[in-house]
């Protein structure tokens, strides 16, 4: 880890200016309203969020665009594109020193980009599977004839009270070579199967963890829907599949969008699940970021990766927002 | 208005026996003017109604008096004292809000006792006063009810009781009957008027319902686009509207474009009519306002003008007929019916023809 952790003087100055500006704003609001105005109740929170959210994000940005000496650089992003960037740079420099072009000897390290693509692909698969599994479940529970619907929804939430690490580890006991599934197969006289330490196991773990986040918003959207609409559709000649396809599904889009957001976002950044169920054979972007910070101690590249991650999520969110402009999809809250 | 003029007017207002004075009040919301100079005084025990279409600034005026908004310019005096800087909880004024604004987490008793508890009165006194109020608004025995379980009319009564129990000098009412059905609204109008007379409290009442204003008020203030159009008692406002807008807003009227031929003679619908107005100059364009009940239907041969009956509607007390005459369609109220398509003569006595300076946009009943 870096020993030098001091910020340049201008960073401190900027923070000082920010604080003074905040105090001034509070002061002006008090003056203008000749006393306490309710909007001032938000000021402790504002201050808190500036210190614990805005400043930390700025710190990440600061690291992403500086080198180990604090000088401005874009090398960290080049490092994302080419994980051998630093090594290659020294190889080329060594070549230059002896007056030769070594560029034939260097190769681009693709691990960072590959990991990102792999994470996106896994998150995409996880989202699709959750949607395919979760939509029918939500639909069945939201059916008015299903009297137990609300109770069943609670059954989807309860598993989340069990520590998610432990739940994931519990899958190990089911999937491992000497685990319950293999024991059962062997007892039936079959060959044992390798279930763990591959992408499928990781995907299973992700679907398992994020499925409730898909079911819940869709259920909320469906149960808020006016059931007379589907009656009207039936009255106008739709059979039950047409009603589902032409009326129910389009109306539940806010719920679907919200569900996709709530599953896709944490899936991309999953870390821990690949470690347990993938056994280190698979690495996702979250693991990569963590490794950069805690194992390699390379904050600059780690910050650049985090920034890329945030950017990606912001872009996908704004695309999703287009599909649900009013943000009607009910979340967990 | 310059500060000198303002202080002069404040000094003048202090010499009068007014309860509330609004002097040159203006109000802007984010640069959009809502009130453009309101001058109004209110006397003790007066029932004043601010009347106008939505967006005319009547509610804003009320909220400035209540202390929920501050005027951009102008002065607000209460018994001669400037109270602009006084927060609502220090004003001797109480408000009945549009949708009642009862506290949903409190029952009827606690809603009414809210203000009294703040005054730290002994419990026995509070109990007594709440009981009296419940009696006044005909809700005896409802003290422990939950407010959300009450009907609209009952909630309205609780809201009134909650304000009156504090014995305010002035009660502000913001469209208090707007959410009630017609029959209940009529009952409550009478009850409110009775209450006001019995308690001797000043009422400032906001409504867009002209009938309500005419029934209840001592003084009506007609507003439009943030300005006062006319102030007067119901009769004078109805009989002598200051302009075509007031005429149209208060009661039904025929508003026509006409020409003042000379003093006391006006020309419209292709004929000259004697009238009682003068001073507009010769051949000046004017607006002519005639109430539908002021047009008399006579024989074809004796009418000042002749028209054809286009439609007849029975309205309970009278018939409403649309009559084509000249280039206008007149709306006429009459207790006797004439068959559709028949020709009739129309007569208007000079006293019932109201002449006004023309407005740019005349809201008329021409179709």
């Amino acid at each position, binding site marked *: 880890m870096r020993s030098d952790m001091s910020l340049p003087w201008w960073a401190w100055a900027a923070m000082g200016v920010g604080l003074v500006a905040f105090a001034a704003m509070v002061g002006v609001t008090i003056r203008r309203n000749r006393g306490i105005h309710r909007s001032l109740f938000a000021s402790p929170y504002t201050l808190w969020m500036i210190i614990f959210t805005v400043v930390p994000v700025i710190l990440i940005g600061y690291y992403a665009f500086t080198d180990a000496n604090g000088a401005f650089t874009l090398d960290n992003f080049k490092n994302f594109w080419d994980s051998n960037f630093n090594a290659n740079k020294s190889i080329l420099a060594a070549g230059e020193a002896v007056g030769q072009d070594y560029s034939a000897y260097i190769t681009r390290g693709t691990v960072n980009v590959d990991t990102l693509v792999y994470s996106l692909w896994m998150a995409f698969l996880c989202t699709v599977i959750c949607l395919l599994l979760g939509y029918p479940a939500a639909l069945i529970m939201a059916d008015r004839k299903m009297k137990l619907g609300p109770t069943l929804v609670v*059954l989807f939430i309860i598993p989340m009270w069990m520590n998610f690490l432990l739940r994931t580890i*519990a899958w190990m006991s089911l999937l491992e070579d000497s685990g319950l599934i293999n024991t059962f197969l062997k007892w039936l006289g079959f060959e044992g199967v390798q279930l763990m330490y591959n992408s499928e196991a990781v995907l299973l773990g992700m679907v398992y963890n994020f499925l409730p986040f898909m079911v819940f918003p869709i259920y909320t959207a469906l149960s808020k829907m006016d059931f007379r609409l589907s009656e009207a559709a039936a009255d106008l000649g739709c059979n039950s599949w047409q009603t589902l396809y032409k009326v129910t599904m389009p109306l539940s889009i806010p719920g679907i969008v919200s569900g996709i957001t709530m599953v896709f976002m944490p899936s991309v950044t999953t870390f821990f699940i690949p470690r347990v169920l993938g056994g280190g054979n698979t690495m996702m972007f979250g693991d990569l970021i963590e490794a950069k910070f805690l194992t390699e101690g390379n904050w600059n590249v780690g910050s650049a990766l985090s920034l890329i991650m945030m950017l990606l999520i912001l872009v996908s969110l704004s695309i999703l927002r287009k599909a649900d402009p009013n943000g009607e999809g009910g979340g967990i809250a | 208005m310059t500060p000198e003029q303002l202080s002069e007017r404040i000094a003048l207002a202090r010499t009068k026996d007014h309860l509330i004075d609004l002097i040159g009040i203006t109000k802007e919301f984010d640069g959009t003017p809502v009130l453009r100079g309101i001058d109004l005084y209110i006397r003790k025990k007066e029932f004043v109604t601010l009347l106008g279409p939505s967006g005319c600034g009547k509610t804003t005026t009320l909220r400035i008096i209540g*202390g929920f908004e501050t005027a951009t310019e102008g002065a607000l005096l209460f018994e001669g004292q400037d109270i602009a800087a006084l927060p609502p909880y220090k004003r001797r004024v109480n408000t009945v809000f549009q949708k009642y604004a009862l506290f949903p987490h409190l029952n009827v008793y606690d809603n009414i006792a809210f203000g009294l508890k703040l005054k730290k009165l002994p419990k026995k006194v509070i109990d007594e006063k709440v009981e009296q109020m419940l009696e006044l608004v005909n809700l005896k025995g409802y003290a422990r009810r939950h407010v959300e379980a009450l009907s609209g009319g009952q909630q309205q009564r609780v809201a009134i009781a909650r304000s009156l129990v504090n014995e305010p000098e002035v009660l502000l009412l913001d469209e208090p009957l707007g959410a009630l059905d017609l029959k209940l609204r009529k009952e409550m109008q009478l009850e409110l008027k009775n209450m006001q007379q019995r308690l001797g409290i000043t009422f400032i009442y906001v409504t867009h319902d002209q009938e309500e204003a005419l029934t209840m008020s001592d003084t009506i203030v007609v507003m439009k686009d943030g300005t006062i159009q006319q102030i007067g008692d119901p009769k004078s406002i109805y009989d002598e509207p200051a302009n075509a807008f007031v005429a149209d807003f208060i009661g039904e009227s025929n508003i026509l474009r006409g020409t003042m031929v000379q003093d006391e003679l006006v020309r419209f619908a292709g004929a000259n009519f004697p009238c009682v107005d003068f001073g507009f100059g010769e051949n000046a364009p004017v607006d002519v306002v005639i109430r539908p009940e002021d047009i008399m239907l006579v024989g074809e041969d004796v009418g000042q003008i002749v028209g054809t009956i286009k439609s007849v509607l029975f309205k309970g007390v009278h018939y409403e007929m649309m009559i084509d005459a000249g280039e206008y369609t007149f709306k006429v109220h009459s207790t006797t019916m004439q068959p559709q398509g028949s020709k009739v003569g129309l007569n208007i006595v000079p006293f019932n023809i109201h002449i006004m300076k023309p407005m740019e946009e005349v809201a008329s009943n021409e179709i």
Partner: protein
Amino acid sequence: MMKWLKKCYLALVLIFLYVPIIVLIVQSFNAGKSRAKWEGFSLRWYIELFQDERTLQALFVTLSIAVLAMIVSTVLGTLAAIGIHAMKKRPQALMMTLTNLPNTMPDIVTGISLMLLFIFTKVERGYVTMLLAHITFDTPYVILSVLPKLKQMNRHTYEAALDLGATPMYALFHVIIPQCKQGIITGAMLAFTLSLDDFTISYFTTSPLVQNLSTLIYSSARKGIDPSLNALSALMFVALLVLLLIVNRRTAEDK
């Protein structure tokens, strides 16, 4: 037929969700330490749980942080929601962006950014930093559960209170807060459970010396989970279930 199919489908999905939990609970009663082999029923791990200092310490850290973070974030968030609600359009939009920011940020980035902050300001990571981090990610959720209640509220009730002689403070505590009580309770419960379950952010904001249950499980995941941790989570799970049943019974009686 269709109905039967539907029920079967739901049952299968629920089995998928509950299998690991059942496995976990069964394991906690296993006499042996093996994950797969059943060596007879025993309460051994439950007894060991109460003798294992490290686990108990982690339990204490988890619960105390969850409670403290819940209290602070509920107060902070409720006040903030009231403030944001009273704001004009533009500052309100700004505040909502700020509030939604932590939700849109991946946990790992939130955790790392806070870690950077603490390293920078030379605050030693441990109990306090973890608490600060938990308050930070809890508060927006409180705001998001209180704000809808404020929006539903008749905005004139606040003015009515002032009109009847209440000072703004009195009106806040006796009129506004009672009316959004439900949202505040939901927000507090949400904050508590989020904090209880958090791993990623805690992982980056604490030191190995101060561990909550999640980080403890994580650090021992490689060498095999101590079955007493299974026993502990089984106990917590049952406790939460009982709590839910009581709350449900209560609300059913209220109706």
